């Protein structure tokens, strides 16, 4: 680990000011990803700004009937919060599908949003990586890319976003609340993470001197149906090869009235196709419609040398998750048998 200066912010304004003064500073919350990246010298900040004293640990209802979750609430506390468990069980399920209990007890909401890819080349400072060292190259494209992107990748980067929580937030339609020198900004989750394009070093659209204050969930969706189905190489405590978050309502005539579906493990950000979702509205919740939707969702998929299996796997995962949601039998995150 490179040596660094440690400062502790006592206010949000002070954290913003400190970020402005130290452009290469990193904010420290739970530290479960940042400290790890620093141990590998992948992250080499000269200043760490500890924000653990900031008043960002509340979960409260918003005026419009949604929920606001502070940036420093731990992943565990989000998952077990009664309002989350009752009104946004998709979010609770996705969080419990990720990491381990120890990590969830330390990791925060903001840290989960800001975590970096687990691409093995990104983590290995002895290899080139356009995300870690812009312009140095991408060994993953011709190399070990079984876990890499099939959607939205660029010539420069084929990394995937590793979060489970963010996939659920994408399906639910969360908003990220941030504060910078010029005040508050609300960023829809779909616009928060970015595709790699020609700047893979940038994971998000956050400015360098902005602090995440929290996330806002839209008003409670009555009679929602959901499932978070995560496919991985071992039963627990592994990143997704593919995951699907389904947030669905079905009306009295058995027609789909809300369809918000996000894919994880397949792209640089949680993947949604709202045009494909719109075609599900008003149609029966049937397997044939789900299969048609899944084909549209994966229509632009491009395989790398080792991951062509992921395209069909993603398609099947989406169909299965939609069927689980429609039948009100969401995937359990402890009994991993897929029904």
């Amino acid at each position, binding site marked *: *680990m490179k*040596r*660094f*200066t*440690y*400062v*502790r*912010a*006592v206010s949000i304004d*002070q954290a913003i000011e*400190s970020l402005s003064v130290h452009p290469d500073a990193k904010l*420290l919350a739970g*530290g*479960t990803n940042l*400290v*790890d990246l*620093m*141990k590998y010298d992948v992250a080499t900040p*000269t200043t*760490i700004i*500890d924000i*653990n004293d900031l008043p960002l640990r509340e979960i409260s209802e918003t005026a419009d009937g949604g929920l606001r979750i502070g940036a420093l609430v731990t992943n*565990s506390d989000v998952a*077990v919060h009664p309002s989350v468990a009752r009104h946004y069980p998709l979010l609770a399920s996705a969080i419990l599908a990720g*990491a*381990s*209990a*120890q*990590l969830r*007890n*330390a990791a925060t909401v903001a840290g989960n949003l800001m975590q970096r890819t687990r691409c093995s080349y990104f983590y290995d400072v002895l290899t080139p990586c356009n995300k870690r060292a812009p312009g140095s190259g991408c060994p993953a494209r011709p190399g070990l890319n079984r876990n890499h992107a099939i959607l939205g990748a660029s010539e420069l980067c084929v990394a995937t976003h590793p979060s489970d929580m963010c996939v659920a937030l994408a399906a639910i339609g969360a908003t990220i609340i941030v504060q910078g020198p010029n005040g508050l900004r609300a960023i829809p989750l779909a616009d928060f993470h970015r595709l790699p394009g020609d700047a893979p070093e940038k994971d998000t659209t956050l400015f360098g001197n902005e602090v995440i204050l929290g996330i806002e969930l839209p008003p409670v969706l009555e009679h929602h149906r959901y499932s978070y189905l995560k496919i991985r190489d071992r*039963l*627990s*405590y592994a990143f997704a090869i593919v995951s699907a978050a389904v947030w669905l309502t079905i009306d009295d005539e058995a027609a789909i009235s809300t369809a918000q579906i996000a894919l994880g493990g397949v792209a640089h950000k949680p993947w949604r196709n709202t045009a494909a979702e719109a075609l599900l509205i008003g149609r029966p919740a049937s397997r044939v419609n789900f299969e048609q939707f899944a084909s549209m969702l994966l229509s632009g998929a491009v395989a790398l040398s080792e991951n062509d299996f992921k395209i069909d796997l993603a398609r099947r995962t989406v169909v299965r998750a939609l069927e689980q949601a429609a039948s009100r039998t969401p995937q359990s*995150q*402890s*009994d*991993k048998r897929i029904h």
Partner: protein
Amino acid sequence: MAAAPNTAHRVAYTINGVIRVATVEPGVTLLDLLREEFDLTGTKKGCDHGQCGACTVLMNGHRINSCLVLAVSRSGSVVTTIEGIGTSDGLHPLQEAFVKHDALQCGYCTPGQICSAIGLISEGTAKTRDEIREGMSGNLCRCGAYTGIVDAIEEVMAAVSDAESLP
């Protein structure tokens, strides 16, 4: 808030009921503080990257990976390590159950397993064997004593009607 580069920082922790203070550089983890400064070597360094769970301790009642906590960041916390669980005269119920069920072979992961299991039981969300396995997935055992570990936790969990009554 300002501090000179690489300044050492004063930290204070309540560890197993005793207040301990030290001066650390900001890059020192809670794990290294416990082992190197306080000579509490029961907490093990396995991977040092939050992947194996050998370094699990209870911080303010919650199980965490001590290898990923900067000691300077969580000064003031209450920490329980394996040295604070049971005594040579009276084992903790989980320690007794681990012995009874052969829930270890080499023993290197055991302090982390015990701390993690105490956290699991006090969280109160795991009821079934599947849920115990899922809840303990952050603790690897390369000897493969998983069946015994789940047996031991299941037995203690059944005996503890109130999680608060666990020492």
